[in-house]
């Protein structure tokens, strides 16, 4: 079977693939992280970052430098790069990019709704929204009282519209319902993205589908872990699990019945990919399940760069960049709190 990707991928997307590989090469190295860990203050951190690809991105910041400002500026830089990719892309890569931004849009919608619940001003919340997830109707989100309001009045024109099918209800949006809404939207989004990649076929499907399957299973496991001891019922819990992963259907069903970490572990032990991950939890470094999952995600994203002529490199680059931002924010927090025992718990991107 002739692989058609190599024949005409470069016509439309070759320039961007070359660009993203160049960007990937300028991610922080282990030596950079060693230098950052030795900083005593956030100003030192800023100076060290100036020698890397980040350059003078903090040059316009007024004193005092806070971790939150560093995070905001890093996000803006990522957004500029991503916008450049997006503006130069053709179909179907443009649809792929749109799918990538949907997850940030969902986060922004939830942030805005929570802000409305806490009676925050829209401008204050807008400043903290993720720039990758911006859409034109953002300011109007806080006027919605129920989910159907939200859909009909605000989001029907955005790319999020098709994900609202399972979430329409007349319940008022309080904390529980906002959490349910967030997870249901994300579930629909992930399943739609998975279908898009699978239908596209070729190398993109080969690379992206395992990554998205892992993402779906990871969401199911983390939701289960965090729901122990809360008011979320087991039936509600099961409706939040995305179904495009390896755990579907038996694993998800068992997971919905789990009541503590041990039971969850036993469910995961049935799957060869997840057994070693659960065994790495705890251990000498005190790793949490989230840490172990982030490590696995980094592994899969780095491997995506070993194949050519697929869209997965763009997704992988953005995710690796996000991990790098998480690492820098963690190191910055440890420095500013002067609590250096766990400063080496970042995940280096090799």
């Amino acid at each position, binding site marked *: 079977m002739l692989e058609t990707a190599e024949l005409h991928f470069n016509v439309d997307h070759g320039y961007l693939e070359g660009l993203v590989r160049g960007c990937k090469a300028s991610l922080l190295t282990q030596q950079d992280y060693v230098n950052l860990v030795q900083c005593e203050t956030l100003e030192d951190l800023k100076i060290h970052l100036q020698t890397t690809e980040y350059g003078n991105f903090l040059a316009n910041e007024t004193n005092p430098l806070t971790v*939150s400002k560093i*995070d905001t500026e890093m996000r803006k830089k990522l957004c500029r790069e991503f916008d450049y990719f997006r503006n130069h892309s053709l179909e179907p890569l443009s649809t792929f990019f749109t799918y990538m931004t949907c997850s940030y849009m969902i986060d922004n919608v939830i942030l805005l709704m*929570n802000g409305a619940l806490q*009676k925050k001003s829209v401008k204050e*919340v807008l400043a903290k929204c993720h720039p990758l997830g911006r859409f034109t109707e953002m300011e109007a989100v806080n006027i919605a009282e129920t989910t159907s309001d939200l859909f009909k009045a605000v989001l029907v024109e955005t790319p999020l519209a098709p994900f609202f099918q399972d979430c329409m209800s007349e319940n008022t949006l309080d*904390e529980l319902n906002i959490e349910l809404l*967030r997870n249901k939207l994300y579930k629909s989004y992930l399943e739609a993205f998975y279908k898009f990649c699978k239908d596209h076929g070729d190398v993109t499907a080969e690379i992206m589908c395992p990554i998205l399957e892992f993402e779906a299973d990871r969401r199911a496991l983390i939701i289960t872990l965090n729901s122990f001891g809360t008011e979320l019922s087991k039936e509600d819990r099961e409706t939040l699990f995305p179904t495009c992963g390896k755990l579907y259907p038996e694993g998800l069903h068992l997971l919905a019945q789990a009541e503590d970490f041990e039971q969850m572990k036993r469910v995961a032990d049935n799957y060869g990919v997840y057994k070693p991950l659960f065994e790495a939890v705890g251990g000498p470094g005190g790793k949490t399940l989230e840490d172990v999952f982030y490590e696995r995600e980094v592994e899969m994203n780095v491997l995506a760069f070993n194949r050519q002529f697929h869209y997965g490199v763009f997704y992988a680059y953005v995710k690796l960049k996000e991990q790098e931002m998480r690492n820098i924010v963690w190191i910055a927090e440890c420095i500013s709190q002067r609590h250096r025992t*766990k400063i080496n718990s970042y995940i280096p991107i090799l």
Partner: protein
Amino acid sequence: MEVSALREELDSMFLQLLSDLEELEAKRAALNARVEEGWLSLAKARYAMGAKSVGPLQYASRMEPQVCVRASEAQDGPQTFRVIKADSQTPEELGPREASLRRRKGPTKTQESGASVVPQDPLNWFGILVPHSLRQAQASFRDGLQLAADIASLQTRITWGRDQLRGLQKRLKELDPGPA
């Protein structure tokens, strides 16, 4: 003799003061450790949830406290501070004077503005499904609150003890002007 009784009282008061000071040091170290733990757990929660999901956007600017401090004064003793839940009914104190209820702005984690009758758990400001590190942070800050009240009581007791000690020493000098 009155002098020797006075000396004994002075000695026991002094010993009490020293043991209070030791306890104060230990409690201060414990409070520092709890607060540091709490902030680190918050940083871990930000790592897991995203840096903007755990921050000043998530709580309202006006909030009702969940715990309050009640100061009470015994007739001839120092003031003590107790941390109590804001909505519980406390029994009347036996002292002659009931000190007024003081509102205390503790760490933001334990304060909450509730529209409902039952004050909400501030953990729910960050969503229903919160990572374990956030719960740990809440537990650390709660312990810290209790320690802070104990430290306040200990400090007033130490100042009161010092004054008592000075008073006793003066009386001793009057009764026994020789080398004391």
